[in-house]
């Protein structure tokens, strides 16, 4: 018994470096933020949070939440449409090439992507000039260096991610279900409303949450495209990291903790939806 126990104990030793690393660079840094955001001179308190929510910060959360919700929704709708067009395509070349494109572009992002959009849709951008020649003036009504411009750049990385996430679920829709529905007299709309969407619902919702988190935590794209002009949570936190942390560290920590909470809800929700046992639609 004691021999077995000793062996079990030594078995854990091999895992020690990994857990120590996780502790040192993942858990302790986060716990530092938790502790410091709940601590004021008077002891444990929520004071930092009430102080953190100045009008500017509330505005940054509103912008970030809106941008994430809109681009996640566009990503889910557009990505599902494209993924459906891909998986139902009869030509293998089309399926393989477009899946590969989604695979590759899902890795594009951040600074180079933001810059590609400046070249494409900036004030003297390639497409801007093209549209102007066609009689459509984007500027000054639209600016790529604004929240709506940022949304376009975000959709660029949301779309391929959505395609990769939803293709397996779409492949899980059995053709037999559709045949059965048709045999029972269902229209296409009825099939989608009563069979297709209910089966896909958990995947769609889970993907929405992941895309939401993906946009909410993004910083490099926003910084390259709009600098400090667009007020987002990540831009605010980065500004505090670069400069004002020394002045009011607890403030930045409180903000970081709230955004961590938003991200946590999304990722936990996604995992729950992705790993829960699959149930057939009743």
């Amino acid at each position, binding site marked *: 018994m004691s021999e077995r126990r000793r062996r079990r104990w030594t078995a*854990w030793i091999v895992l020690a470096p990994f857990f120590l690393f996780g502790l040192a660079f993942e858990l302790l840094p986060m716990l530092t933020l938790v502790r410091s955001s709940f601590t004021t001179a008077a002891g444990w308190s929520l004071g930092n949070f009430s102080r953190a929510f100045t009008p500017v910060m509330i505005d940054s959360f509103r912008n970030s939440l809106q941008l994430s919700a809109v681009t996640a929704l566009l990503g889910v709708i557009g990505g599902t449409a494209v993924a459906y067009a891909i998986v139902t395509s009869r030509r293998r070349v089309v399926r393989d090439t477009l899946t590969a494109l989604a695979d590759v572009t899902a890795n594009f992002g951040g*600074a180079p992507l933001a810059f*590609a959009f400046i070249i494409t849709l900036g004030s003297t951008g390639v497409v801007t000039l093209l549209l102007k020649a066609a009689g459509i003036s984007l500027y000054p009504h639209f600016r790529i260096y604004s929240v709506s411009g940022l949304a376009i750049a975000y959709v660029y990385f949301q779309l391929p991610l959505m395609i990769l996430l939803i293709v397996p679920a779409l492949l899980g829709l059995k053709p037999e279900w559709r045949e059965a529905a048709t045999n029972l007299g269902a229209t296409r709309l009825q099939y989608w409303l009563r069979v297709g969407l209910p089966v896909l619902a958990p995947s769609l919702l889970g993907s929405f949450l992941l895309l939401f988190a993906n946009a909410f935590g993004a910083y490099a794209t926003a910084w390259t495209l709009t600098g400090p002009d667009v007020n987002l949570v990540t831009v605010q936190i980065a500004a505090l990291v670069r400069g004002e942390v020394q002045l009011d560290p607890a403030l930045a920590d409180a903000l970081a903790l709230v955004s961590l909470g938003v991200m946590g809800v999304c990722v936990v929700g996604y995992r729950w939806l992705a790993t829960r046992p699959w149930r057939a639609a009743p």
Partner: protein
Amino acid sequence: MRGRAAWRFVVLALFLAFMLVPLLATVLFSVSIRWDRSLWPEGFTLRWWQAVTARSAFLDTLLHSLAVGAATVAVSVALVTPTAYWAHLRVPRAKPWIELLAIVPFGLPGVVLALGLIRFYSGVPLPLINTPAILVAAYVVLTLPFMYRPLVNALEAVDARTLTEAAQSLGAGGWQTLLRVILPNILPGVVNGSLLVFSTVFAEFTLANLLVGTRFKTFPIYLVEFTRFDARQASALAVISFVVAWLASLLILWLAGRGDRPRETLAAR
């Protein structure tokens, strides 16, 4: 039937245009003499490529990024491979905890990770702040999901238990089994994870900017600096970034063959 084919064609054409136009525009822009007042470039030149690659900062930042990418891959492989193997084989009870550590980075914005690291390590007597070492550590954390998932998939696919028993019945020790038997068998998973890690690190801006900034300039930092004052030279740098990400993805696809496998992907933005 024709109506359905038309619908598919429109959706796919719009998708292709949206995904490809910004990339092709950037490539073309980087070899254009001028392309900000006419519909088509006013002639082509390699001047911007020559100018931007001739700077010493170009090679420095490129080497910095390659070094940080390679170091991150090395640390991650050394840390995650034995752990995933051992947990898979001997300590299944540890798996949920490892999984937890490997999932948390999905919900960890770069700015928050940077803030946490700075706040914690400025309070302990370790000379890590502002060094490339802390950047590598942060990257290992950030990319844990990319390394862990393919490894576990590979371990599950090759029946690591039978292989281990076979190796040990022939007298192999623990490390010998891992390095000589298991590793060659799960190599596709290791390479797949490494490529994802490398391409993520190579393009990462947020952590590099906040953790080391100008003290150890990486390629994305150099790129962002250029976008502020010379668009044409910056476009050449953006093309290099895209090509590296594209090569890594192609290698992964090539290694994966034609199998349709779901993968967890969430590069740093």
